[in-house]
């Protein structure tokens, strides 16, 4: 579960960030595309911290 959450976090943050840059450069900051990207990055950040606090072991 921990390993999967880690991967999901990486995936969501990467896809969301690329999507956000795309929404700025291609769609001239269209708010709908920006919000979708923000939602994806946000989910990624939540996954990242859940993984970090609950599953991550040094």
């Amino acid at each position, binding site marked *: 579960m921990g390993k999967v959450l880690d991967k999901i976090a990486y995936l969501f943050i990467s896809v969301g960030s690329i999507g956000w840059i795309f929404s700025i450069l291609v769609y001239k900051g269209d708010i709908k595309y920006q919000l979708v990207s923000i939602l994806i990055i946000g989910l990624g950040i939540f996954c990242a911290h*859940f993984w970090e606090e609950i599953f991550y072991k040094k």
Partner: protein
Amino acid sequence: MARRKRITQAEEWQAWAKRYDIDGGVRTFESGLSVKVILGALFVGLLMMPGSIYMQLVSGQSGAGAAPWVAVILFTELARRSFTTVRRQELYILLGLAGAAVGAGGRYTGYIWEAYFIQTPQAEAFEIADKIPRWVVPPRDSIAIAQRSLLHPDWALPITIMLVRLSLSQLRWIGGPYVLFRLTADLERLPFPMAPVAAQGATALAETTGKRETWRWRVFSIGAMAGLFWGALYIGVPSITGVMMSKPIQILPIPFIDFTTSIEGFAPTGVFALVTNFGAMLSGFVMPFPVIITQFVAALFTQFILNPQILYRFEILHSWHPGLDVRATGLQNWLDFWFSFGLGKSFSFAFIGLAVALPMLLKYQEARRKEVGERGSLRTPPGRGDFPIWIAGGMWLAGMIGYVYLVHWMVPNFPLLFLLGFAFVYTPINSYITARTYGILSRDLFEIPFIREATIILSRYEDIDIWFAPFPMEDYGRGTQHWRVLELTGTTFTSNIAANLITLPILLISGILVWHFIWKLAPIPSSQYPFVQTWWPINATRRCLWITALRDGQSQMLQAIRGTYVAAGFGSSLALYGLMWMMKMPSMWFYGLIGGIGADPGSMIPLVLGAVVGRVYMIKRFGLKRWYMFNPVLAAGFSCGTGLTAMAIVSLALVSKSVIVKPF
């Protein structure tokens, strides 16, 4: 190449907190309340209050940090000459009371501001001046304002309301943080990593009444001498020449030297105003190095690349024209873009705070279930001065009900549901989250920006009285740490509460008298007070823009909020945070970058100088541990030095302006 090791945010912040944590705590409790402590605090506090107010008006810094140290110097010296010692509990109470005494004037600052605001051309032009409620400030034509007098019957209503609010706030601010302290420190055993730092101050000072002098006196004296020199140069010269001449001489312009028009050729819309308060270098010594440097880099990037080369070229910053100074350029840029972007940026802070706090909550819940014997108990240590938690809860409830009733009386047409929602839903939840983040990280991570303003706009309430009324929206989380510091210094809770309540009436009376006298000296703002003369007109314009946000449907403020830019601020901040997390970079870099974006790099030069000197020379010279031990004492000595200079100068100014020259 070695892979970068992941450090969680909690570990990273606690590692920083440990650098400042020098002494351990104690678990035996004694009262810190005594007549000599109260007299000492009042003597020093009231002596320094005028200086603190004066400094606030001249340079924007109150220097209130000096007062507790002055109290302690006097106190410990008296103790040493009397062949006695001072307990750490007494010193901790003394520190708190002296600080409260110096800051007591702050309660009346708002009245001077309101008396200025009601007379401003901005309030007149936006048709606000004649609509400001009577419970805020007397009318414009009142003799109290014309004569600059706080001791006039026209102030009776605003001051009575302040007293009622103060009484109710005592109930809330004792009850609320105490309940949260019991939940987070006693029940959940959160560490409160920065609390030992505050406790260490009193502990260190108590040592000085012993037989042997420690390094602390030497470091404190160095800081104090530097502060005296700087205070004389920065505040002394303009204040003394201001007494003798019509226009004060400033060796260093206060508060900044504006280079904005000089850079407009190659960086149009960029701002650069070099802040001349080099006392801020001491903050640079103390603050985390990565935060300061990344903040500075982001600010340089904003003003020299982002603003002129991108936002200006794409006509996002469209209101600027050549010749504008830092204040006008800043205001235009703020309205065009940075206000909206800043909103989104702040939302990202709140969001990230929530994302960090929620998993911690789950983790601690789990740990609590495993270790029932250690955690999950509400039993208190003997002699700590606790009182039943239901009494604290009852105090908070009574204080909050009274507060909501008062606000409803002030703005009877504003929807009561909003007030109740903020008082009984938002405040407890927000406070609990902050208390938890303070307990773990010693930081407030969850803060929704402009929530009050947004609520007023969303409520479609168009009368302007709501903009002047208090709002039942509070955050007790930060105050929770104070109880933990009391516990660590071994000071009984009841002695702290009693000391504050005993001194409160004296401070209220002396505060109004001091402000009354200072207001009589010269109009505020005026050339005597360069800081307020620079900033208050800008603040008045911004306030007018907020207040008129709904009135005519063409509000500049509402037009300034652009969804696309808010989303850009939110999205770019989250993307940056996420990418930095993926690259295992410290979260401090993120907070620095986001803090610096949109800011003026000139305002950070003293901080950067302090950080670089600390890093390049001081740490190498003294070692990391010793340098972090020296820092708080040095900073306290410096603020003491500047505070003493300000006090001496204000006394000269007060005497000189009280003299009436007769023509014969």
